[in-house]
């Protein structure tokens, strides 16, 4: 498996990488399974969500992706009537935000290790606790920020090819 492109999170006005997929819980609990199309080995889930924590609440504020039928998805595709903001009340778990420099790259899932991890515990969409875990010190010259090292991109089938 290839390292996966992260979700985005706006936290205190700063956009950071989010190494958790709260939308997966939604699909599981809601019993729905939208058929996202994946055109890259670095994005098997087929979508990228942008989240925001405001007033200790987790919101989904943007969603990008394509369905297998070629349809482009946005927030309203999954949450009709809510084009701008969705309160993630279904989500309970820990959000992981990588901080500092890369200690060890792992080309699988969200497996890379960073100097620190900011962990935000969420219960039913509301922030419960925030803690910083120190994982170690990166070697000199190590890069900062979450990135995927390599991926294979597949050509996307156009609608006309489907027909």
């Amino acid at each position, binding site marked *: 498996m290839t390292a996966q492109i992260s979700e985005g999170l706006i936290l205190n006005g700063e956009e950071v990488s989010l190494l958790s997929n709260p939308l997966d819980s939604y699909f599981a*609990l809601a019993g729905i399974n939208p058929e996202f199309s994946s055109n890259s080995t670095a994005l098997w889930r087929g979508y990228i969500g942008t989240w925001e924590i405001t007033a200790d609440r987790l919101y989904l504020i943007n969603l990008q992706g394509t369905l297998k039928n070629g349809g482009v998805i946005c927030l309203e595709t999954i949450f009709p009537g809510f084009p701008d903001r969705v309160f993630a009340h279904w989500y*309970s778990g820990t959000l992981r935000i990588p901080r500092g420099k890369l200690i060890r790259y792992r080309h699988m899932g969200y497996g890379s290790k960073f100097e620190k991890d900011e962990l935000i515990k969420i219960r*039913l969409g509301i922030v419960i606790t925030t803690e910083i875990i120190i994982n170690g010190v990166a070697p000199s010259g190590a890069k900062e920020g979450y990135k995927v090292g390599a991926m294979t991109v597949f050509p996307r089938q156009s609608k006309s090819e489907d027909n």
Partner: protein
Amino acid sequence: MIWLVIYIFIGTVLVTTVTLSDKVKAYAEWKKIVRDLKNKRFSGRWWIQQALLPTIGFLIMSLTWPLLLYFWNADRLKKSRRDRREEETRFRIRRADLVARCSVAEVEIAEKIIDPMGAVPGLPFGHLNGAWVRFHDAKPEAAELWSFATEWEDYWGNFFERKGYVWRHQEQLHPWLLTFDVATNDVLGNSD
């Protein structure tokens, strides 16, 4: 001496049975051998692949047939253990998981979700209302609504805290609606 003869006889019968059963399955392979024989296509490679190697394999297996039985039995036991584990870890609600009996009206009031930014529908269970409606519609006749809370261990040994509602009908606890599902394992478990 008689025991050696019996041993080799059992081995021969066993391996012949297994070989024939495999060959019957691989009918196309048989047809190819027969076709080669008819057309007299016997290259050196043919003799090695179709005659020498199978004969050596047959002789070895005839002499070491207890190993064949051992591996066959080990494979059967492994499959049986896997099936049992799958059955044990299949998510189900037990009577001990039931928390309280409730009415639909009570649940619909309790599960209204309020958001100051108005980013949730004003319906029971908010964005999960569709799942609630399907669960409600699937109510078995004369069933009672119960809330449940449980800790569940999945096939791979991960633990989850799960909560929700279930229809209780006689001793059946089904269907259920999951409203809370959180892995209790360490979030960094996959990063080391």
